[in-house]
């Protein structure tokens, strides 16, 4: 027989990526399930992914533009700038909270069936990606409202979405694994997300940050992602060194996430 399987301590390490490929169909179907359940369970499901960013955008525009009188970057209206920043941030925040709970939510699968565990947080990040797509529809609506024509660089948007995906997936994997190990970690996640919203340039432009702090500021990987989105959709100026630093940090997180996840993955079934 062609297919032979060897089970021993550490065997799954060797065939890790091959296994991941073999189980791709399970990945599709789990992502499909997550989506289906999400939009079936609540009629609000889809509405929610529209209402939340819109409300936050209105509040942020009011506070940062009217009350704090911060300048917009480039020529785009302030609300549009906030919303474009909100897109990747919302995606990142959703991915993080969904991924972190995904393993515990699927513990019945983990203790009963074998598959590469990475499939589960990955499929929950995919659902957030669909939310992002829905929010994009509002963006188009806002273009009409503000009579704004996006710049030609918008063709690079997929590239920036990919970077957003990498940061969300990397950080998500790391937190997911931590969450299995330390069950009270989930209380920290909402805090990280809330805190992150204010240290990421969502409600304001990163150009308000003093120049000498720009590079330090870019250690937050979402800074580069948000700046990138604004550059390619609105044509806001892009600080290249800070952008590159964010990309490097994102990749670093991806590596760290995968490494830590793989390290702890073997004992998930024993711990969960």
């Amino acid at each position, binding site marked *: *027989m062609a*297919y*032979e*399987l*060897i*089970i*021993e*301590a*550490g*065997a*799954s390490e060797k065939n890790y990526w091959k296994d991941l490929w073999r189980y791709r*169909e*399970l990945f599709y*179907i*789990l992502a499909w*399930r997550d989506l*289906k*359940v999400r939009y*079936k*369970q609540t009629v609000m499901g889809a509405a929610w992914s529209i209402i939340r960013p819109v409300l936050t955008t209105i509040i942020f525009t009011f506070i940062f533009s009217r009350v704090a009188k911060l300048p917009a970057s480039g020529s785009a209206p302030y609300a549009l700038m906030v919303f474009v920043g909100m897109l990747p941030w919302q995606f990142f925040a959703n991915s993080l909270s969904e991924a972190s709970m995904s393993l515990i939510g*699927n513990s*019945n*699968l*983990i*203790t*009963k*069936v*074998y*598959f590469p565990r990475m499939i589960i947080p990955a499929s929950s990040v995919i659902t957030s990606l669909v939310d992002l797509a829905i929010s994009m529809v509002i963006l188009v609506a806002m273009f009409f409202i503000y009579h704004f024509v996006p710049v030609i660089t918008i063709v690079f948007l997929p590239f920036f979405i990919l970077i957003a995906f990498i940061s969300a997936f990397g950080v998500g994997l790391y937190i997911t694994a931590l969450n*299995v*190990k*330390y*069950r*009270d*970690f989930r209380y*920290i996640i909402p805090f990280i997300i809330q805190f992150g919203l204010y240290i990421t340039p969502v409600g304001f432009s990163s150009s308000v940050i003093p120049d000498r702090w720009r590079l330090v500021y870019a250690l937050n990987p979402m800074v580069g992602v948000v700046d990138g989105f604004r550059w390619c959709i609105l044509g806001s100026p892009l600080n290249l060194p800070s952008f590159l630093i964010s990309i490097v940090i994102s990749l670093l997180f991806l590596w760290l996430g995968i490494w830590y996840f793989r390290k702890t993955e*073997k004992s998930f*079934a*024993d*711990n*969960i």
Partner: protein
Amino acid sequence: MSSIIEVENISKQFIIGHEANERYTTLRDEISKRAKDFFSFSNRETRRKQHASKEIFFALKDVSFRIEQGDRLGIIGRNGAGKSTLLKILSRITEPSSGKIKIKGRVASLLEVGTGFHPELTGRENIFLNGAILGMSRTEIRRKFDEIVAFADIEKFLDTPVKRYSSGMYVRLAFAVAAHLEPEILIVDEVLAVGDMEFQKKCIGKMEDVSKNEGRTVIFVSHNMGVIKTLCNNGILLVNGLVSEIGSLDLIVPKYLNSSSEFRNVEYVHREGGEIFKITNVNINETKGAMVKMLSEINFQIDFDAYNFRDDAEFFLLIYNNEGNCIQGTFQEDSFTLLKIRQQYGRVNLKMTNTLIPGKYLISVGCFDKRRNFLDWIEYCEGFEVEGIYDDNRIYRKRLGATLVNDSIWSLEK
């Protein structure tokens, strides 16, 4: 021909210490522990002592065996003997601590009926989801879709969310998907013990079909020796993580049942229920391991803890022979009496005439509420032995295969 599965010296160990015995830690504990370590002046010596206090527990130790193509292997053992761990290792859910297993062919494991079923999704959607989880490809599921639906008998409810299904329908659908897997090797945990009797029969029939007629290799775990004996041709008896016996079931099953009737002070295995009502102790003729004469009176004493349950209860008692076949069952329904439970602790007495021929027997005792839901069911909880003499001290002579005797009156018509 080489074996389809070769298991070589598999061990699985868990570390139990006073801190590590929780299944997961919390960050709070971790931080406070680190802080304590840091501030306390405990030097390396004491810390090393703490490490030494950790105990290594072997769930499996040096387990080796081979399975040939087409074998149907039953794994037998008491709770905690390592059966589930072995299945989990074979189906790759956990890794062994040491040892090696070689498997030729596709493995599908069925450790639970309906793994991954989502209540919000419809029957149709769940077939695809569950199939994929069990390792079927989409084309494979599509090809067998009609067959699965027909087997489960749920055509009318295909597009209803599973949460509206009755528990019977749910189980039928779940098993139907699993039954249409076509792996070379099928690993099945005690999942046939669900659903109504008729469907159970259908499942066992299907399992027999899969294993005997299609020549697949099956590894099967069950507490039900009768089912094991119909389905399997070989067995492994695990005792405390070690292989105690490998070979023919006719040899192993009596050994297992004998050993379980010898275990005194062992906790009862609650097969069903046991949450709101618990049978705490069972005696036979006021003792354990009673000796009983043929056609004599036999008395069972069943102690219970009813917690807050105050309602009608129906007790039953099953008697198994040495081979694990259930040969006699007494249900309160037979005598049209239910017992009204009025207090938390109590004892139920059952008196019957012993109609069994000499040999060793095991009993299961259980209890339904008036809607026939299990309140509790403890399996193989006690045993007794029937002596080779009658109540009036005549010696018993072996007869032609009959397993029951009766106090009968013979007469010649004039």
